[in-house]
């Protein structure tokens, strides 16, 4: 049918053997691969630093409009810096309920 010579058949068998060996190794590597536990990644990523954020960055956070962002910046200018995230409660328009919703988006450095 194909009229391969003896040498061609040997080459083809060699290539097929290599391919099958490669598949077996690949299969074994995938079965034996495991996910290992690592030190916890930076949990502050995605959080805005209240002492460095500008108006635009504050407004990107859900629940923060233009007026609230301005009030946050005014508070920071007046007090010098935020000592902790909980100081958001001192800003007009942020009550306990709203603070609970917002605290996960901010950090203080």
């Amino acid at each position, binding site marked *: 049918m194909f009229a391969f010579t003896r040498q061609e058949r040997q080459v083809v068998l060699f290539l097929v053997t290599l391919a099958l060996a490669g*598949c077996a190794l690949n299969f074994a590597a995938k079965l034996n691969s495991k996910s*290992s536990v690592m*030190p*916890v*990644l930076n949990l502050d990523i*995605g959080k805005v630093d209240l002492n460095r954020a500008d108006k635009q960055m504050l407004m990107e956070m859900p629940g923060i409009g233009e007026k609230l962002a301005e009030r946050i910046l005014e508070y920071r200018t007046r007090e010098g810096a935020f000592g902790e995230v909980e100081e958001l409660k001192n800003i007009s328009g942020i009550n306990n309920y709203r603070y609970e919703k917002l605290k996960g988006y901010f950090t203080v450095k």
Partner: protein
Amino acid sequence: MKHPLAVLTAAFCAGIVLAGHLRFAWLFVYSLAVLFLLGGFLFSRKGRVFDIILVCLAFLLGAIILKTSRILPGCHIFKIVSYRNRQPCIVKGVINGEPEIRGQNLIFVLRAEEIGVASSSRTCCGKILVHTRVGEELHDGQRLLLKGKLYQPWGPGESRRRYRDYLRRQDIWFIMSVKNSPALVKVDSRRSCFYRSFTAAIKRRLEGIIFQYLNGIPASILDAMILGERRDIPDFVNNLMVKSGTVHILVVSGFNVGIVVFIIILFLRLLRLPRYWRFLVSLPLIITYCLITGASNPVVRATVMAIVFIASYLIKRDPDICNAICVAALVILLFNPNQLFDAGFQLSFASVISIIYLYPRLKQAAGLNRLQFRPLRFVLEGCLVSLSAWLGTAGLVACYFKIFSPVTVLANILVAPLASLITLSGFSLITAGLCCPALAPLFARANEALVWAMVAVNTLVLKIPGAYLRLPS
């Protein structure tokens, strides 16, 4: 038999298709393949028996390779994150490929290395498609920390399922939307391997030349035809060409690779290099062009076919187009057997195979060899090439895009020569932009006129009654 590789490739593809639709244990198929391999060694002197064993081995190899590719490693992100994930995750990974700008969004593929969910963090692998806002300077190879929710494109509808399957064929299992800038942190600015950053830099330089001398639709069409970047093509142009069946013009294909080979060999001839060295030096340059254009299926197919032809010259063997296309298919499928189910792969190979197979038969049936008037013969031969390609791809286009375009043959006869001239003038523009900028505006004006002519022809052709039909989904 003249083309044993064609039979073996067909058996390999059949194995992939069957493995894609049936469920069976990997170990069972592998054991069967090992048995057949032993049989191959035992019966290596018995011609017919050996040939049958070889075909069976090719079939089983296709099935095994597909099954192996679909096995997810234990550390894969799909096994760590539930698709119903509601909490934001922190992912650390490396950008894979150059980011793309689409409107207001920056989109890139992230190769995940670590993932933090809730209070734990684990190593992982797999890719995530990330959508973020334009503004950050990101590049291939950069390591990032991202925070956002991971989700899969689930939902009703065939288009949603197709999109999910399309992403999975590229090993992309999740999409992440990063909405605000603090949720994206650059860990290091190291670039990817030298060759990838080199080809990316060349692509940016060539794109810069195109957009320096052209703007709007001509620039976006030339960018697509020469460099494979289709992001800037307006939707109405894309829709126009899909309906007329000429959208393949916007894809870098064999014609482009052929022109690149011609330019390289001509240039090396001017340097008085011997023929052997001309062909040898052209090989890495063709591969570089393939990488610059994004190594899509049509480009890889054309590049591998060009390499096979050049290699046949180097080892003093007669080139065979059937073997060349089989090698191209095997190269693509050995890397990623899931590509066999991709519409682009199927259309690319179907068009070339139908031209190779049908065109000589149609030419003989039409009796064109007896036609003495050369210009008419040239036009009719073009018609038959277009007809052959249409016959080979009409079914697939109807199946995937729900469009049937009877006007495709006429449109391609009119548009294909224009596309060839656009490609030639585009390469001339780039060469002039690099070597002799004073000439570049001339090629740019010619290119603009040709592009607008092509758009006008497509618009005109679609006005013919019954030019295209939308099929029910």
